[in-house]
C-alpha cells in the first residue's frame, strides 16, 4: 500500500513538474526574442536578418521534424555568375529577389507562376576594376527590402535602390573610391527612412565608416568614421561607454601612432541590428590596418569592436572593443542578435555575439556591459575576458613578432567564426552557430602602404584544429554558456543558419550538402547534395500556394572557397592569406557554381 502511494506521489510530481513553482524559480525562463522581433509570422523573408533582432527564425512549421525527410526540389535558377554566393534570397509578397556576387545583378522571380520565371533583372554594371581591390572573392551578403524598394551595395562602392515591382533604378549613389581600395559587400539595413551602409576594405588601409542615406533620395544624411577625431567618429556628450578604457578625448587618434588612423581600417562590412524600443543601431567595426600589429602600437580605437549609435544622427552611445590592439585580423562584424533574457535574476535586454576572438559575448545592449564571454572554439591565442574591465587577455607567447613564425595560434585570422550568421530559435531558445575549428602559423612582416593595393603585413597558413575537422555546427545554451550538441564538418562552415518553428535548423557545407537538422538533438533529418559548395544564407517563406519553401544559393567561394572560385594554386600555402593551406583539397570535392535551390514538401 505504502509502495503504491509512493509511486502515485512520484507519478503526480512528474506530471506536475513543468508547472512546479519551485522549479520555475530555480530555472530562469529561456532567452526570448524581443517583442519587436516576435511579431506574427507573415510568411515573408524581407531582410537577410529576417527581423531587426537578427534572429533568422521563421514561425512556419509545415516543414518539421516529421515531414522534412520528404523535402524535394521545387525549382532552381542560375545566377549566371560562378563566384562565391553569400547572399540571402528574399521573398516579398509573391516575388523572390536574388542578388549575384559581382557584377551584382538583381533578379526578381515570380513565385505565382510555375517554375518561378524571371520577372526582370537589374544590372548596376559595376566597374570591372573593383575586382582587383576585393580582398576575399567578389561576394555580396544580400539585398534588403523597405518602402517598396530593394536596396543593395555594389562591389565598386555604390548603393542602389530599385523599384521592387518594376526593377527600375530609383537612385544610385557612389560612396567610395576603388583607387583607395574601397569596395562594398554588406547587406544594408533600413531604419525608418534611412538606409544604413558601411565600407569594406580592411585589407587595403581603408579608413572605415558607416553612413546613412535618405531612402527617398539616396543622399547622405550622416557619416561616422571608426578611426580619427571624436567629431568624425560622432562621439559627443551622449557617448557613455561602460568601460574606462573607452573614455577619453580623441581616442581614435591617440591610441595610434601619428596619423596611422588614416589607414586604420575599422571598416563596416558585416551585420547591423536595430532596437526600435531603445532607438539604437548596433554595428561592428572591422580589423585595424595593417594586420601586422607591430606597426600600430596602442588600442587602435575604434576598430574591432561594437558601436551602439542613434540611427537618426549617427551619434555614438556606447562602444565595446572585443580586440583592443587586434593581433590576428579579428574583425568584429559578425551578427549581433538582440534578445531578452534573465541574468542574475533580473531581466536584461542583451546583445548576443559569437565573435572572431572565439568568445560568445552576452552584452547588455542598453549600456554595453559584458555579462558573459564564453569560449566556443579551441583557444591558444587568448586566455579569457576580464568582466571587470571588459578586456580580452592575449597569450603573450602567441603575439606576432616581426620576421618570426609564431605557430599554433587558435583561432585563425578568419576567427572562430566569420561573417556567416547564426540563427536563434524563438521556440527552443537556443542559438545555432555555424563556425570553424582551425589554427594557424603567422609571421608578421613590414607592410608598405600603397593606396589601392593590399596593406596587410603578414604571412599566414591555416590548418585544421584539434580533431582534424575544420567546421562545426553547434547548438548553444546561452544561459548555461555551453554547447548542447555539435556536428563536425570536414571543411570550415561558411554558410549561415536558419531556425524554424518546425524544430528544424538548416545550414550548408562547402562540399555542397544542404542539411536539415533536429533543433533539439542535432540529428541530421534530411540532406541534399547541390551542384557546388554552399556559403550562402538559407531562408524560408510561405509561397502564394500556401506551402512552406526553403531557399539557398549554392556556389562556393568567399575567403574560404577562393581556392575554387579564384582557381588558386594549393602548392602555395600562403595563397588566399593562408586559407588555401587548410582547404587545399576543396578543388577535388567541388567546383564553381551559382545556383538558387528552392525546396518544398510534395
Amino acid at each position: 500500500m505504502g509502495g503504491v502511494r509512493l509511486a502515485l506521489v512520484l507519478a503526480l510530481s512528474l506530471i506536475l513538474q513543468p508547472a512546479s513553482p519551485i522549479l520555475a524559480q530555480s530555472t530562469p525562463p529561456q532567452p526570448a526574442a524581443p517583442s519587436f522581433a516576435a511579431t506574427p509570422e507573415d510568411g515573408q523573408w524581407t531582410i537577410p536578418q529576417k527581423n531587426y533582432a537578427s534572429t533568422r527564425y521563421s514561425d512556419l512549421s509545415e516543414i518539421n521534424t516529421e515531414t522534412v525527410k520528404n523535402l524535394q526540389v521545387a525549382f532552381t535558377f542560375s545566377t549566371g555568375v560562378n563566384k562565391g554566393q553569400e547572399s540571402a534570397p528574399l521573398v516579398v509578397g509573391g516575388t523572390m529577389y536574388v542578388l549575384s556576387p559581382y557584377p551584382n545583378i538583381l533578379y526578381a522571380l515570380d513565385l505565382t507562376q510555375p517554375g518561378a520565371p524571371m520577372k526582370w533583372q537589374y544590372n548596376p554594371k559595376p566597374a570591372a576594376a573593383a575586382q582587383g581591390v576585393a580582398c576575399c572573392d567578389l561576394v555580396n551578403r544580400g539585398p534588403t527590402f523597405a518602402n517598396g524598394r530593394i536596396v543593395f551595395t555594389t562591389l565598386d562602392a555604390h548603393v542602389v535602390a530599385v523599384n521592387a515591382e518594376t526593377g527600375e533604378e530609383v537612385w544610385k549613389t557612389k560612396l567610395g573610391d576603388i583607387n583607395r581600395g574601397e569596395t562594398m559587400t554588406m547587406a544594408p539595413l533600413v531604419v525608418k527612412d534611412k538606409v544604413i551602409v558601411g565600407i569594406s576594405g580592411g585589407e587595403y588601409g581603408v579608413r572605415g565608416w558607416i553612413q546613412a542615406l535618405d531612402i527617398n533620395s539616396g543622399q547622405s544624411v550622416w557619416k561616422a568614421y571608426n578611426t580619427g577625431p571624436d567629431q568624425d567618429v560622432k562621439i559627443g556628450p551622449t557617448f557613455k561607454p561602460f568601460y574606462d578604457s573607452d573614455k577619453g578625448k580623441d581616442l581614435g587618434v591617440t591610441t595610434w601612432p601619428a596619423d596611422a588612423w588614416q589607414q586604420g581600417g575599422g571598416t563596416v562590412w558585416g551585420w547591423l541590428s536595430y532596437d526600435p524600443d531603445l532607438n539604437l543601431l548596433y554595428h561592428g567595426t572591422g580589423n585595424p590596418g595593417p594586420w601586422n600589429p607591430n606597426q600600430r602600437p596602442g588600442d587602435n580605437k575604434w576598430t574591432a569592436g561594437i558601436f551602439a549609435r542613434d540611427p537618426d544622427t549617427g551619434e555614438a552611445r556606447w562602444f565595446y572593443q572585443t580586440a583592443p590592439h587586434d593581433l590576428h585580423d579579428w574583425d568584429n562584424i559578425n551578427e549581433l542578435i538582440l534578445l531578452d533574457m534573465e541574468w542574475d535574476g533580473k531581466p536584461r535586454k542583451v546583445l548576443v555575439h559569437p565573435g572572431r576572438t572565439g568568445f560568445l559575448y552576452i552584452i547588455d545592449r542598453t549600456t554595453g556591459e559584458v555579462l558573459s564571454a564564453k569560449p566556443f572554439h579551441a583557444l591558444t591565442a587568448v586566455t579569457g575576458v576580464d568582466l571587470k574591465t571588459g578586456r580580452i587577455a592575449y597569450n603573450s607567447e602567441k603575439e606576432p613578432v616581426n620576421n618570426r613564425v609564431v605557430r599554433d595560434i587558435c583561432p585563425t585570422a578568419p576567427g572562430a567564426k566569420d561573417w556567416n550568421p547564426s540563427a536563434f530559435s524563438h521556440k527552443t531558445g537556443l542559438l545555432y552557430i555555424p563556425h570553424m575549428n582551425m589554427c594557424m602559423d603567422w609571421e608578421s612582416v613590414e607592410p608598405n602602404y600603397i593606396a589601392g593595393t593590399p596593406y596587410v603585413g603578414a604571412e599566414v597558413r591555416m590548418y585544421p584544429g584539434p580533431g582534424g575537422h575544420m567546421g562545426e555546427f553547434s547548438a548553444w545554451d546561452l544561459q548555461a554558456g555551453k554547447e548542447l550538441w555539435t556536428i563536425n564538418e570536414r571543411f570550415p562552415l561558411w554558410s549561415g543558419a536558419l531556425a524554424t518553428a518546425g524544430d528544424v535548423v538548416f545550414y550548408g557545407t562547402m562540399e555542397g550538402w544542404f542539411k536539415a537538422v533536429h533543433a533539439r538533438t542535432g540529428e541530421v533529418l534530411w540532406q541534399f547534395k547541390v551542384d557546388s559548395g554552399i556559403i550562402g544564407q538559407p531562408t524560408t517563406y510561405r509561397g502564394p500556394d500556401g506551402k512552406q519553401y526553403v531557399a539557398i544559393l549554392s556556389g562556393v567561394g568567399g575567403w574560404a572557397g577562393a581556392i575554387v572560385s579564384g582557381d588558386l594554386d594549393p602548392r602555395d600555402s600562403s595563397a588566399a592569406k593562408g586559407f588555401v593551406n587548410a582547404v587545399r583539397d576543396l578543388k577535388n570535392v567541388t567546383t564553381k557554381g551559382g545556383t538558387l535551390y528552392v525546396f518544398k514538401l510534395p
Partner: protein
Amino acid sequence: MRTVLILSLAAVVLAACEREDRDYRSNPVTAETNEKIALVPLSAGPGGPTEQRSGLGKDYEENAYHISQGQRLYTWFNCNGCHANGGGDSGPALMDDRWIYGGQIENIVQTIREGRPNGMPSFRGKIPDDQIWQIAAYIRSMGRNVPKPAAPSRKDDMSPGPAEQRRPPGEVIDGGQIPPSAQMPQ
C-alpha cells in the same frame, strides 16, 4: 710560371664576372622599353601574329641577380598582397601554367605596366622600367620558366612551399581562363 698561373686564374675569375655584368644606373621612371608583342596566337592571314622581341627579356629572366631583385620588389610593391607567393588571392595564381594575358616575360611586363581590365592595377610611372622587368623575371621563376640555376632558393620568411629552384620546369598556356567579366550575363 707563377705569373702565368696568376694571370690565368685572374682570367678565369674575370670571365666568371662576365655572367653578372649589368648596369648599375636604373632607367628613369619615364623610360619604357617597347616590345612588339601580340596577346593572341591568332592573326589575320597565315603565319601568326607579327611580333618583335628585342631579346632583353632573356637578359632578365636568365639572370639570378635580376630575379632576386624582382623577388624583393615583388613584396615591396605589394604584388604578394593580391597574388600571395604565386598561389594567388584576389589576383590569379602566377605559379601555374595558365596566363590570361600571355606568359612570356614581355607580356608580364606589359601587364604590370598597363594593368588589366579585371582588377590588375596599372603601375606605369610608379615602378622604374628596369624594376618592372625584374619583377616579371621573378614571376617567370614562380612556374620555373627560367633556368634552374637562376631561380631563387628558399627564402627567409615562412616557407609557403618548395622554393622556385626546386620546382619542376613549367610551361605556359596562354589565355587559360575566362575573366569573370566575360561571364557577365546581359
